[in-house]
């Protein structure tokens, strides 16, 4: 007897990108920071820690989720 189970799940993602010199710890911290921001902003979304391009490196979060719900 087989049971078919199905459940909808979503994922939150924190993104960090950086040019050297950056340590793994810094990168992990920044991505963690982004993940926290994504969770706080309501989950099922992507939040970045600005760092590589034009970023101020101070942890500005950007919501990269396309706004398709309105």
């Amino acid at each position: 007897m087989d049971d078919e189970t199905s459940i909808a799940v979503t994922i939150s993602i924190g993104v960090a990108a950086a040019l050297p010199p950056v340590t793994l710890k810094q990168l992990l911290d920044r991505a963690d920071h982004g993940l926290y921001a994504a969770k706080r902003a309501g989950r099922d979304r992507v939040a970045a820690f600005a760092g590589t391009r034009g970023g101020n490196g101070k942890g500005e979060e950007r919501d990269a989720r396309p706004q398709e719900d309105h």
Partner: protein
Amino acid sequence: MRRLRRILTLLAMAPLFAGGAQAEVSGWDRLRATVFTNVGREAGLPHPIAMALAQDSDGFIWVGTQGGLSRYDGYRFRTFFHRDDVDGSLPGNVVTALVPAAAGRLWVSTATGDVARYDPTTGKFQIFPEPQGQAARGGVLSMISDGGDGVWVGTNAGLEHINSAGAVTREPHREGDATSAPADRIRSLLRTRDGSLWVSTVTGLLRRAPGAQGFAPVAVLDAQGHPVVDEVMAMTQDSAGRVWFATVRSGLGRVLPTESETAGASGWGVAHLVPEASPQALGGPLVFCLTEGRPGEIWVGRLAGGITIIDAATGALRTVRHNPLTPSSIADDSVRALLRDRKGLLWAATNLGVSRTDLHADAIDTLLPDPGIGGAAGKGLPDDNVLGIATTPDGRAWMGFKDHGAALLDSAAGTITPLPNVASLPPGGVLSITGAPDGNVWLGAGAGRTLFRHDPRNGALEQRAFPGAAVGPVIYGLAEGDTLWFAAGPLVRYTPATGETTVYRHSAEPTSLVDDSVNVMLGDEAGGLWVGTRHGLDRLDLATGAFNHYTHDPADRQSLPADLVTTLLRDGEGRLWAGTLGGGIGVLEQAASPAHPHGVFRRLSVADGLPNDNIGTLLLDRGGRVWASTADGLAIIDPRTWATRPLGRADGVALPAYWIHSGAVLPDGSLIFGGGGGATVVHPDRFKPRTAPPPLVVTAVRVAGQAVPTGDATAPLPIRLGHRDRSLEVAFAALNYAAPEEMRYAYKLTDFDKDWTETDATQRVASYTNLPPGRYSLLIKAGTSAGDWSTPLKLSIKVQPAWWQTLWAKLAAAALALGGVVALVQVRTTYLRRRRAMLEEQVARQTRDLLSANERLKDLANRDPLTGIHNRRHFMELAEAALARARPTPKPTALLMMDIDHFKQVNDTLGHSAGDEVLLAVVGRIRALLRKTDVFARLGGEELALLLPDADESMALAVADRVRRAVGERPMAWTTRRPSP
């Protein structure tokens, strides 16, 4: 006089034509970026400052540094140092010049005045001191081949010659005799193809004609015909026979051969300074080196000035410099030596290691951003993300950028011009760009949320009302007649002339749009419109307004290979091609019918030769071939045979990943693909697939842990093992400097291995332990990513038997047996010998089994037991290693931290096994999106991490969003077996 001039012109042209490559300056020559690969200390270079370069007869690249001499095989540097206590070591660690000699040997000079020759059959350097009773050299500044196997040496104390046998002679200097050799510093040496020897000193140039005894000064004249006295630092001869030289204060000059050159006698004109290459034009005086790049291009390596490239025909200059934002720029701006290798790669020795660029791969060009200029005409892309490309009926191409609006690409003129009034576009990037048949260009600006119309004829740029109510950003547009179709979540049909708008949405109606997530559209000749969405492919019948669905069905191998359709194409046969994310390409061969409700698609995937199953854009060239951009380079597919070839670094594809539906066919037949970091341009007519892989050489041999000489590639030395030598390691490499990381290898020891052992580019060692006595052949071959294998290199190996294993011992035993005295002894000996061979064979097999078991154990220890992806500990190791690799270039690295939302509730309400199933399903979906180089790990619980080497923030965001969609787009489903009653 006129006749003479005509002859001169012809002669100047002749070598160019003979070379087969005419220096034709096209727009692409101006647009294309020079893409470098940089190597240095991370690959084992002992000192960052590289001084000299040479390629030996085996193909190895040698780099002389200020701290040792290194040999490069495309992967690692093998370094030779000076050691006071080691006989035959490098005579000094500051290397000034390198000249290849026959049979893999190499002449080396040092700053302390030593000249030595390396011999690969002994692994030692033989030193050649200056002749007895003469002034000490002081230092060696330059060397050049004498045309045979000897070398000319330019020292601080004059000129020397060393012949192949090693005899050293100092060219005599006589005070007051201008035809004798100079006795002071000799800066540079050149031997031209007519046999002339050119010598430069602090005061100018001298030349000795072939066969002549004395030198003659070569007068250097400026543009007004006045003589110039200056130090000459570097010289080279180009393929047209001209001699180019660099002075310290007066810029570059050149000497043209006169017509008698081809008649045998050497005739040379006067040395003239080249006004186009004055110190002012070059932007700084000091030049270290000169060499010809592509035919007709003189590359000038400078102190802190990068490389200036002079077009010999026009005098036009362009400069290649280090750009901290572009990892593929030259590593450093001080270029001390330049070398063009035999495969057409150009190498530069810099203050930060060695940079190389492939001048041979001219079918594929790269356009890179030029942030320094801010998008001024003709200086590269204004932005490194080309999100959309459109061509207009006038044959021009428009590109939409992530941060800098849009620009016009004129490939004939070689310019990229930003859209006028580009500053008035809202921020957020031009997501779509569409060329309409009436000549207008439509832009989905402000992240696709604001529609603009640009008229290139009058430069007008005006905002237009957004068509349709409550639709999402316009990510793609298609113009058909006077109608525009927009992918804006739903499908939008818009007629600019009347403002009439129709929005096609998904509804409960079965013939409605399959999903409100349109990516791409393509019209067909039968009055239909194909629509690719994130949840399948639809065909809209324009007459009835009904959509016919083609979706992926896991149970139907002939259905659409994946639901997320990114690009559509019609091939020369009229077949529809759909590129997908995760499923490769589907080619529709039969429309849907009752027998085949999903239609019949031919699938092309990684298994067929695609580099990756995430397809960005499909384009058709004029020859009917299909080109695909993917998440891991390009591919070319021949629709007649379905032959599919991946194209990577070796083919000149310098960008790693490409945007979806960002590409166009340009008026000259070139194809352009927008990617992360720039754009790739393919010239299909020039494209020739690579065939034979490059030569394979043995790079190191270790017997019982001790390095032994390898010999040169054409005659590798046989390897001998004594019976006590338990281990043998043979390291090898194919000298493919264009893309060494893409090579594959295989080896086989005859009479020992049953099959070929295949390895990748990171494991280039064949190792054996406890080989039984005997003669063996080790066969090694190299293969390309496209699947072409070289003919195997054969290395003979002899394992010496111990005394009881020798023929002599066997004969003695036989004699004893013949004597009939102790027949048993022979039986016993034979038995023992066989037994021993069996045991040895068994031990060898067990050792190999143990090694592979160890590998498997190591692998288990590195992986998460539930999902099979890397565990936390191993992820940290791999991530550290990836960051270390990114450091020298430097390349950006991205990290994604992911956490499944509300996972605890799943565990609590459905149980832990359901939690495991969800985790497995999530990991499975994410894995399907990754590149080979990405590092994916479960850090613990529901926390996942993904490291993306060589990815910047925008690429990482794109990946993250793909991951988020892949997880959330449909529920996770699994089956549980319930215990039978």
